[in-house]
């Protein structure tokens, strides 16, 4: 049976792992290569490296970092942040990434999703979606959650699936950094509407939250950062707990 995946996310700024709350107040969380290696050894199923560097110069360093991570770890990883072209995707895949994650660029230029899928296959294109509830509607935001669009979350998710996305990474901005649990209801709706896997992101604070996102939210994978970086929930403990609660996870 396919295992539910646990995915630590490394937000990278200027070559260091950082973590903030609601996309703000960044705090240093260590060397990304060391952290990636530690997670792989602890039994994480996959990693996401998200480059949140502001400048283009800093962004160039991501290729080197992606290569170093690939030399060290024996599990898959995706890279996201500022990817706007097939050429960048090629460079990241050539440096060892399995997947790329596109976000704002997909909103600006949806064709990018199909271009990458056609060139390298749907399996390597993850569409990351940041959204928050505005009134009764979930609205997609871009540029690290700073810019609201007029796009509704579920129709957008369906659309990018049709364009060739192999996976959706959905971050609830309302839940991100709160440690009060994932956006379980929205995730359940998304998982019931889509035929591609969905990674849940935003709100992990306890082991119970992971149980809920898999059982109630029907997510295929759950992503978190600070609970892992700062040692609050060790990955092996989390897997023991999920397994005890009848959730199928990979044991190493």
């Amino acid at each position, binding site marked *: 049976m396919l295992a539910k995946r646990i995915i630590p996310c490394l937000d990278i700024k200027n070559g260091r792992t950082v973590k903030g709350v609601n996309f703000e107040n960044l705090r240093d969380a260590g060397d990304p290569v060391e952290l990636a290696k530690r997670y792989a050894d602890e039994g994480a199923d996959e990693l996401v490296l998200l480059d949140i560097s502001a400048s283009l110069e800093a962004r160039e360093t991501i290729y080197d970092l992606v290569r170093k991570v690939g*030399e060290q770890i*024996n599990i898959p990883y995706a890279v996201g942040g500022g990817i706007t072209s097939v050429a960048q995707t090629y460079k990241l895949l050539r440096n060892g990434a399995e997947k790329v994650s596109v976000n704002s660029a997909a909103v600006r230029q949806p064709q990018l999703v199909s271009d990458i899928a056609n060139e*390298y296959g749907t399996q390597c294109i993850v569409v990351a979606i940041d959204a928050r509830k505005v009134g009764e509607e979930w609205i997609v935001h871009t540029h690290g959650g700073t810019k609201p669009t007029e796009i509704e979350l579920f129709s957008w998710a369906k659309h990018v699936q049709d364009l060739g996305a192999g996976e959706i990474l959905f971050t609830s901005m309302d839940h991100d950094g709160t440690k009060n649990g994932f956006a379980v209801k929205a995730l359940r709706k998304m998982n019931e509407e889509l035929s591609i896997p969905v990674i849940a992101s935003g709100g992990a604070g306890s082991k119970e939250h992971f149980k809920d996102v898999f059982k109630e939210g029907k997510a295929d994978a759950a992503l978190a950062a600070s609970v892992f970086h700062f040692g609050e929930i060790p990955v092996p403990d989390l897997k023991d707990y999920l397994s005890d609660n009848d959730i199928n996870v990979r044991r190493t």
Partner: protein
Amino acid sequence: MVAIIDYDAGNTCSVMNALRRLDADFMLTNDKESILSADKVLFPGVGHATQAMNALKSKGLDEVITAVKNPLLGICIGMQLMCDFSVEGNTRCLGIVDAIVQKFVPLNHDEFQKVPHMGWNGIVHSGDALFTDVAESSYVYYVHSYFVESNECTIAETDYNHPYAAAIKKDNFYGVQFHAEKSGKVGEQILQNFLNL
């Protein structure tokens, strides 16, 4: 020396990294003599079956692969291309293994039937040397939308909606559908087993 077949359709970087971690000597090559004289041949790949076959043919590698006498391991689409035919783009493949590559059919409202089949799933193997010291139901990493039907060359199966061929073997030709190069310690063991053949 391990020859990794270079035909612009592989994520050869991950395979090279895995071999480096195993301290194996390898070369990335599309040279006929180098491939035919290598002790072991790795045939990785991602992407679309038609494009991958076209890339092989344009370099004459289709004929080189079928002529390999030493152990060869096809990974992911490499394994699929070793079969007769793929429904992906209705592609005639290398015809080493008498099997058809089919497409998973997605079914909504059931999280276990999404397509692509992406993530870690268990294998049940028949004790072939490729799986020496690999425990039953070990997890390996998959990303694919097409699968090889179980056939007489099957040496391991995985269940996703239904059982299918996780690994195949025909004479000196081996294939694994999962990404051994990204399957943690289990994957490293399988690659090491292949190198030990």
